[in-house]
C-alpha cells in the first residue's frame, strides 16, 4: 500500500514536471511572437522558435572554448540553475508537502537565492573577448592613463548581480512572505490549506498589494526589461551569459522559460492556493497564471527602456515599501 502510494506520488511529480516543462518551452515564444512583435507591428518569430527550436539547434552546435578561469564551474552553472528551478517546482507540488523541510517558503527562497548567486559567479567567471581581451593597443603613446586596473565588462555584471541579491530582489521576497502573515505558517501545505478554507489570498487588500510587488519582483529576478541591468545591451551586452555557446546556451534558454513557469506556479500556490499537479484540473490555473504573467511582462518590457541605478533604486524602494505595507496589512 505504502509502496503504491509512493510510486503514484513519484509518477505524479514526474508527470507534473514534464507537463510544466513542455508548457514552459512555449512561454518565451509567446512573449516574443504575440506581445513584443504585435506591439512593434512586426511578424516576429515562430512561437516554438525561442523556447524549443533554438535550444534544439544549439544542442547540436559545436561548442567554442570558453574563456574562463574556472571553465568547469562556469559551464556547470546553467545546469545548476536548471536543477534549482526544478527543485522549486517539485517543492510546490502537493506530493512534496509531506517533506516540510522541502515544501516551505524558506526552502523556496533558498533555492531562488542559489539561482541569483549563480549570476554572480557567471559574471565573475566570464572573460569574453568583448573588452580586455580584445587585441587592441590601448596603452600606446598619447593614451591618457597607462597604469590602470582593467576590468572585463562581465565583472560589472557580477557586481550588479551582487547588488541585486542585496537589495534588488527584496520586493520578490517581501511578496513571498506576505501570504505567510495571513496563513501564519511558512509551510506551503498550510498556506494552500488556509486559502482553500478562506479563499485566495490574492483577493484580500494585503494580497492584491503583494501581487503587484510580486510581479515587479518577477520581472527583476527574470532580468527582463526594464530591470535587465545585469545584461543591459548598452554596456555589458549579455552579461553573465556572454560566453555560453552550444549546449550551454541551450540550457540557458530552456531554464529561462522554465523559470517563467515556475515563478507563475509560486504565485498560484501562495496567492491562489492552487498547487501544480497533473492529478487536478488546478494545473490549468497554474498555466493560466504563467501565461498572464508572461503577457503582462511582455507589455511592460516592450514599453520600457532599461533602467539604470537612477531609476532602479527608487523603483525597488517603492516596491519594497509596498511589500512592507502588504505584510503589515496581512498582520492586522
Amino acid at each position, binding site marked *: 500500500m505504502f509502496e503504491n502510494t509512493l510510486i503514484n506520488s513519484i509518477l505524479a511529480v514526474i508527470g507534473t514536471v514534464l507537463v510544466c516543462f513542455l508548457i514552459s518551452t512555449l512561454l518565451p515564444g509567446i512573449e516574443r511572437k504575440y506581445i513584443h512583435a504585435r506591439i512593434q507591428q512586426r511578424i516576429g518569430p515562430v512561437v516554438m522558435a525561442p523556447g524549443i527550436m533554438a535550444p534544439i539547434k544549439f544542442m547540436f552546435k559545436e561548442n567554442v572554448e570558453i574563456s574562463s578561469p574556472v571553465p568547469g564551474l562556469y559551464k556547470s552553472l546553467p545546469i545548476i540553475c536548471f536543477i534549482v528551478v526544478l527543485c522549486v517546482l517539485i517543492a510546490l507540488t502537493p506530493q512534496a508537502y509531506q517533506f516540510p523541510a522541502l515544501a516551505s517558503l524558506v526552502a523556496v527562497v533558498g533555492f531562488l537565492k542559489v539561482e541569483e548567486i549563480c549570476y554572480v559567479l557567471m559574471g565573475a567567471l566570464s572573460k569574453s573577448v568583448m573588452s580586455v581581451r580584445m587585441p587592441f593597443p590601448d596603452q600606446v603613446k598619447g593614451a591618457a592613463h597607462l597604469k590602470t586596473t582593467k576590468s572585463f565588462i562581465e565583472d*560589472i555584471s557580477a557586481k550588479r548581480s551582487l547588488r541585486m541579491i542585496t537589495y534588488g530582489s527584496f520586493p520578490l521576497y517581501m511578496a513571498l512572505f506576505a501570504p505567510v502573515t495571513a496563513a501564519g505558517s511558512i509551510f506551503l501545505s498550510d498556506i494552500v490549506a488556509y486559502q482553500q478554507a478562506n479563499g485566495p489570498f490574492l483577493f484580500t487588500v494585503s494580497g492584491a498589494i503583494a501581487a503587484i510587488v510580486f510581479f515587479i519582483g518577477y520581472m527583476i529576478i527574470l532580468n527582463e526589461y*526594464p530591470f535587465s541591468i545585469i545584461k543591459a545591451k548598452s*554596456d555589458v551586452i549579455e552579461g553573465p551569459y556572454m560566453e555560453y555557446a552550444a549546449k550551454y546556451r541551450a540550457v540557458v534558454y530552456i531554464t529561462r522559460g522554465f523559470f517563467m513557469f515556475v515563478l507563475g506556479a509560486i504565485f498560484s500556490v501562495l496567492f491562489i492556493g492552487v498547487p501544480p499537479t497533473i492529478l487536478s484540473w488546478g494545473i490549468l490555473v497554474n498555466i493560466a497564471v504563467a501565461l498572464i504573467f508572461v503577457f503582462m511582462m511582455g507589455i511592460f518590457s516592450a514599453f520600457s527602456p532599461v533602467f539604470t541605478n537612477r531609476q532602479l533604486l527608487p523603483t525597488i524602494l517603492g516596491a519594497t515599501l509596498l511589500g512592507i505595507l502588504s505584510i503589515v496589512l496581512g498582520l492586522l
Partner: protein
Amino acid sequence: MDEKVPRSKIIETEIPMGTVHPAALEPYRVRLFVEDEIVQEAEITIGVNHRGIERIMEGLPVEKANSLTEKICGICSNAHIWNSCRTAEMGLGIEIPERALYIRIIMGELERLHSHFLYLAHGCEVLAHETFSMRVFYLREIVMELLAMIGGNRVQYGCSVLGGVRPRCDLDESKLLRLKEDMDKVEEGLTDFANRFTSDSIVMSRISGIGVLPQKQALKLAVTGPTLRATGVARDLRTTMFEYDNFDFNVVTQPDGDVKSNLLIRALESFESIKIIRQAIVNIPEGKVVNRDWEMFDTGINESYIEVPRGTLYHSYALESGRVRHSIIRTPSMSNIGAMQYACIGDQITDAQLSIVQCDPCFTCSDRTIEIIRR
C-alpha cells in the same frame, strides 16, 4: 582636460569596450575610466576601418573621384558626392541648372531625414526601447523607398555629377506626387512618435540630464551640426549655402546639450526638412538637370563646406589635367569625437554608449590616418 573632472584624479578601474560592441553601429574602442560605475574619463580611439579613400582619389579623373567619395559613408553618401562635385564646380566655375539644385536639395533633405531617423531609432535601441526604435525604422523605410525611387538605390544613389544631377534622377509629375504624399505620411508618423516619446515619463527620466555637453565646451571642441545646435548655438551652414537661398526654414536649437536635447533636435529638424522638401516640390523649375557645357582646366586647391546631417562636411582638392590632387575630406564626426569623450563623464556606464551615440558618430567616415605598429 575639462571642468567636469580634474586631470589629477586617480583612476581606479578601466573598462575597455569594443572595437566590436552591439550598442555601437561602427567599430571603435572606448576606454571608460570608472569609479563605482560612474565614468570619470573616457578615451575613444578609431582607426580600425581605414580605407584610404583620399589616397585612392589621388590622380583619379575627377568624375571617378567624385563617385568614389560616395563610398565614404553609407548614410550620407549623397552629401559626399554632392560636396565633391561642388568642390570642382566652384573651382571650374560651372553653372548649375536651377532644377538640378532643387533635386540636389530634395536628395539632401531626404538623406537628412533618413539619417536623423536612423539616429532616433539607434538612440531608442541603446535605451533598450525596441518599440520606439521599430516605429522610427518604419518611418525611415518610407524615406529609403523615396531615395530608391529617385536614385535607383537605397544607398549610394549616384545622383550628383559635375554640372548637375544625372538625368535618371530627374523628377517627373508622378514622382513629385508620390514625394508629396509620402511627406504627409512621414510628418504624420513623426508627429505621433514625437508626442508619444516626449510624453513617456520613463523615457524622459532616462535621457534628461544625461550626456550633458555645455555650450562653452561644445564651442571649444569645435563641435558641429545638430550636436552643436543641441547646446543652444544657432549655427547651420545651410543658411550660408547659395542652394538654399530660395528656401524658408528655421535653424532649430535646444538648450541643454544632453541626450534629450539631441534626440529632440533631430526630430524637430526632420520637420524642417519636410518643410524644405515641400517647398522644393511646389517651386521646382522646369528645364535641364545637367550642364555639360563647361571646360576642364587646372585649378589650385578648391574647397567646399556644406551642412550634412551630422554637421559640417569639408572637401578640398586641386585639379591637374582633369585629375584630383591633394584631396582632403573632413567629416563632422572628426570634430565631434571630443564631445563624445566629454559627454560620458559623470554618467553611469550604462549611459556611456548613449552619451556617445547622442553625438551621432560616424567613425568609419572619419578614419583618415592609419598607424602601422611594427612588432
